[in-house]
């Protein structure tokens, strides 16, 4: 994960930005503060979301996750600070909206419309050409595995299906950045797995994903980076790919299994050496977690909401 720029960095001066759109981060926030009256929803937040990453946004209720996402989605403005999406300032929202797909936690639907009509409407609203829109909608329904529900009344769909329709709606204009606000809330385990698979597939196609969730294990399976917010402040940004912190399970001959929390490759080698020295018969060592939960607790110093 790229280090976020701060007050002292050369990027602090908007005029000094030299990055091109191709190598610019998907999202760049610099000293962003958002106030609602006297309440500070975001407090001097600076962060970077790399292109092609799946970045998880974690934090308790009221941490500022939705506010941060709404600012990036150009739905609300920051009180102070600077935000760029793919190197473009969000001061011109119409430029940014072409690049982002936003999926809120609740899918607002129109009564009396079929799934296909709903998506066709958004295709028209995004000025998708008439020649392409039918094929596009069919493709999106296939992607979210709802082709069979094409002619169903959208209000009769389950929450999981609606969430997938929301995802299809967010993709109708083929955005480069997908912003998902608590997409898994209220979904059953099967729907969560399906959603995760779709997001991984989209990411493999080059779509950057910014996703918020309360469910740490879910983000752990999905994300390459995580950003932790607490009470409007950024308390941590970490890459999960390096797996420097991990939980491993060691299987022993005879069926015994033990878990260990480690902080890197060397610690893992040392653990195996110690176990062998102790005469224990190690069958396998498996990384089961990158220790996101442990990191989260460490970053928030054990505070819970």
């Amino acid at each position, binding site marked *: 994960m790229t280090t976020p720029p701060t007050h002292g960095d050369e990027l602090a001066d908007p005029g000094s930005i030299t990055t091109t759109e191709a190598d610019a981060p998907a999202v760049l926030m610099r000293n962003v503060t958002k106030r*609602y009256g006297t309440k500070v929803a975001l407090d001097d937040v600076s962060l970077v979301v790399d292109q092609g990453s799946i970045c998880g946004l974690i934090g308790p209720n009221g941490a500022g996750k*939705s*506010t941060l996402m*709404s*600012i990036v*989605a*150009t*739905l*609300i*403005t920051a009180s102070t600070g600077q935000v760029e999406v793919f190197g473009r300032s969000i001061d011109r*929202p*119409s430029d940014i*909206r*072409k690049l*982002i797909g*936003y999926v*809120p936690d*609740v*899918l*607002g*639907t*129109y*009564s*009396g*419309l079929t799934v296909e*009509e709903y998506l066709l*409407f*958004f295709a*028209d*609203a*995004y*000025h998708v050409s008439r020649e392409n829109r039918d094929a596009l909608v069919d493709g999106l329904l296939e992607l979210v595995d709802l082709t069979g529900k094409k002619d169903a009344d959208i209000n009769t769909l389950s929450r999981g299906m609606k969430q997938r329709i929301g995802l299809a*709606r967010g993709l109708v*204009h083929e955005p480069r950045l997908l912003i998902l606000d608590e997409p898994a809330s209220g979904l059953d385990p099967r729907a969560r797995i399906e959603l995760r698979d779709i997001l991984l597939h989209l990411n493999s196609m080059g779509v950057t994903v910014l996703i918020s969730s309360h469910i740490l294990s879910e983000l752990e399976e999905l994300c390459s980076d995580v950003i932790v917010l607490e009470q409007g402040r950024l308390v941590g940004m970490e890459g999960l790919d390096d797996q420097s912190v991990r939980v491993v399970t060691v299987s022993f001959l005879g069926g015994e299994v033990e878990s260990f929390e480690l902080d890197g490759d060397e610690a893992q080698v040392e653990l195996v050496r110690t176990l062998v020295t102790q005469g224990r018969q190690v069958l396998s060592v498996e990384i089961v977690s990158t220790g996101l939960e442990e990191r989260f607790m460490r970053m928030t110093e054990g505070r819970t909401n």
Partner: protein
Amino acid sequence: MANPLVRLEFMRRFRTPAAAWGIPLAMVLPGLAVIAMYGTTVAANDWVGGNMDVGAVGMEPQVQNAVGLGMFSTVASMLMLTLIVLVPAFVGGSIAGERHSQTLQPLQLTAMTPGQIVWGKFVSSLAYLMLIILCVSPVIVVPFLLGGIPASTVIGSYLAIFVICFEFAAVSLAVSAITSRPATAIVAALLVVGFIVLAPIIATGLAMALAAADGRGFQADQSVLKYISTISPISIGSLVPIPKPNDIRFINGAYQVLSVIWFLTISSLSLLLARRGVTAPVERDR
């Protein structure tokens, strides 16, 4: 259809049970009202000494004309009163409803401009209202066939009703765009439209009464009274051509132009306010 929102709104409106019942009701109920009105008017005329048989056949032409004119005035007035309630009730929830059902934000993020969103909502609402008004046409035709009303008056009345509806809808849409809950928006739209319609008329009446009490009579402050009256959208009705013997309109001449200016001002300001209300980013839509 260039604006996708207009097509969407039409699709939605005509699929609702309200549409299935609303349009036939709009045709049948006023028809029944006219039949009742016809009977009442004839009976009233008979009671005050009119020399006619019940029914148009055998009715003296001048009496028939008076009945036709009386019925037309009543129908037009009833239609206007209905619209004061119907338009805010119909349009008031349109944008607030989008906000409440969380469909406004996705719409704001599309390539549609705030102006297109407002215009789509406005045109679709107005077109549906026009359809309902057109359903009342047979009711207008009955008094017209009885006589006493030239075609120009009927057409002019329709145009005036359309223009007044336009202003009611614009004001209601503005209220809707700055309100979060549909029910609140409808009530607020009703109050604002009611105020715009009635306040100038009430103010004029009070001013007349005060002038009369002051001993100056109705004539004293007529220019001021006319000026105040032009603010009410109903003053647009003063542009409708009326047959000479019955033409006793209060607003005339330059004041008719003023009523058009007020209409244009209030309507365009309302649409601009509505546009501002759906423009993102805004803090309220969080």
